[in-house]
């Protein structure tokens, strides 16, 4: 398993493509080998890709507000399919409406995501955390 292989995608029925392309560019520039599944990716598609390339992390984006539905149960599904140690990140506009970010963060951490990001996060800082978190799981 390479520590720099990561899976990227926009989960569910979400078609927001712009941020996805930018994240891909920045992470690639930061030295990650990014498998970008693009928009409208199912949980199993993420997991299939992670198994195929031996990824150290899955980065889930959700912009359209259905994150609460689309992202639920993902950690359990990863464990079921043998990805016990994979780093799981999620970021975007994860819920419907303007809610306090700390509340949203708790909600998604409780779902088993290692880190939760608002849409305004600096991708380079995400890259840094990612490197550390993947190394820590080795």
């Amino acid at each position, binding site marked *: 398993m390479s520590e720099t292989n990561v899976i990227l995608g926009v989960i569910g029925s979400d*078609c927001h493509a712009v941020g996805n392309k*930018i994240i891909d560019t920045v992470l690639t520039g930061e030295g990650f080998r990014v498998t970008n599944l693009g928009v409208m990716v199912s949980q199993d598609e993420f997991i299939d890709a992670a198994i195929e390339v031996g990824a150290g992390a899955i980065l889930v984006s959700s912009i359209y507000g259905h994150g609460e539905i689309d992202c639920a149960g993902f950690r359990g599904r990863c464990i079921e399919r043998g990805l016990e140690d994979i780093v799981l990140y999620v970021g975007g506009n994860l819920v419907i409406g303007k809610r306090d970010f700390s509340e949203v963060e708790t909600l998604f951490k409780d779902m088993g995501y290692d880190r939760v990001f608002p849409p305004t996060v600096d991708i380079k800082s995400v890259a840094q955390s990612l490197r550390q978190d993947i190394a820590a799981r080795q």
Partner: protein
Amino acid sequence: MQLRNKKLDMDTFLSERTEVMTSWPTGKDVDFEEGVLYQLSLPESKRFSSALAAADREGRTLRQPRAGVALVDEHIKLLQFLEDTCDLLPSTIDAYTRLNHYEKAAEGIARSTAAGTSLLNGFPAVNHGLNECRRVVESLTKPVQVRHGTPDARLLAEITLAAGFTAYEGGGISYNIPYAKKVPLDRSLRHWQYCDRLVGLYEERGVRINREPFGPLSGTLVPPFVSHCVALIEGLLALEQGCKCITLGYGQAGNLVQDIAAIRSLRELAHEYFQAAGYTDYQLSTVFHQWMGGFPENEAMAFSVICSGAAAAALAGATKVIVKTPHEASGVPTKEANKQGLEATTQMLNMVREQIFPMSPTLDQEIELIKREVRSVLAKVFELGEGDLAQGTVRAVAAGVLDVPFAPASCNAGKLLPVRDNVGAVRIFEPGRVPLPDDVLTFHRDRVSERARAEKREASSQMVVDDIYAISKSRLIGRPR
């Protein structure tokens, strides 16, 4: 059957209809003839086309929000809350329904009921069905439009039009390329022929339904000629199926002169192309979308973005403006934030509507530029289709002749790269395979070079990325800091 831009014959339509109406249980409640009677029973105050005609006559710009939640009663409350502050109402459809994932929408409804708050980003009209949709229309006093992003919107159209919605957004290109990943373009065009034909059938029974191709496409630095080409094609395809009331759209780019030139050229080009194709009996209007790209998180700053769009819409003379909210950076807004967007827009429209943006050589040049770009691309589309617009469209997209920047659809070339020039107008950095006259390409290149010199850096994809995030970071142009 091969896709052609030709009015669907009734046999084809009706056999297809049987299949559409049984694709989800709520389809069975719809009876077209009864739907016509219901539409005819609506007062004129609920008819979209009448409101648009009056606005165009009076030179006013109408206000329309986006709004939609999972549950019917909450959806009604939301629209009633907004109704006083706008002229036209929406029902924004949730993302599951847009992809015909009605089971998931059902799950979203159930979870929303349980949570006591909407977990869907819109109103799942198909799941709610005819009578619940009618309850929405009947609870309101203003015209209601279906706004969505659905490549196959046939069942949604059948249900909502029979339910008394009087306007329907979308189109085979504009609701595929920015909204879907793997839907073949010929399929979405064919499905939208069905929707347009359905609107045409209502029209034949004396019921005017407004049809609005979705103007902003990916909402990300789309050059005016790109969205104009799509709007004009979808307008022509709709007219062929018997639609008579067409609203063509454009999303704010941010440079005032370019935005005004865009709306003015769009209207003129529409008459040019519609009449050249032999259509004379149609009602044309325009819609200006406030900035569709990323917004600043800061609400005071978001108000500024909203106001800049409202001012441009009024100065451009758009028939209606689609309004953003100060919560835009955080996704779906509260109803209060939604109303605030409308209030800010109202004030700006009222302060600008009587003012006249002076004609000038600069504005003329921008209008002429857009017209030449559109004519050049559309000539190629017709050529590729060997005279058939639908075929030409499929081939033009495949060939990268029609190319929408930053769109998710795999059928889209994605080779054209836009970038702002030194005054913030959206220009072409990399034309891909879009056929534009040499002098036009030179013009774009010169404008981009001028900016690059001013910024003492090469034009590059980094400059494009900087532009994409500029407004959310409180700039129009993504200059290096």
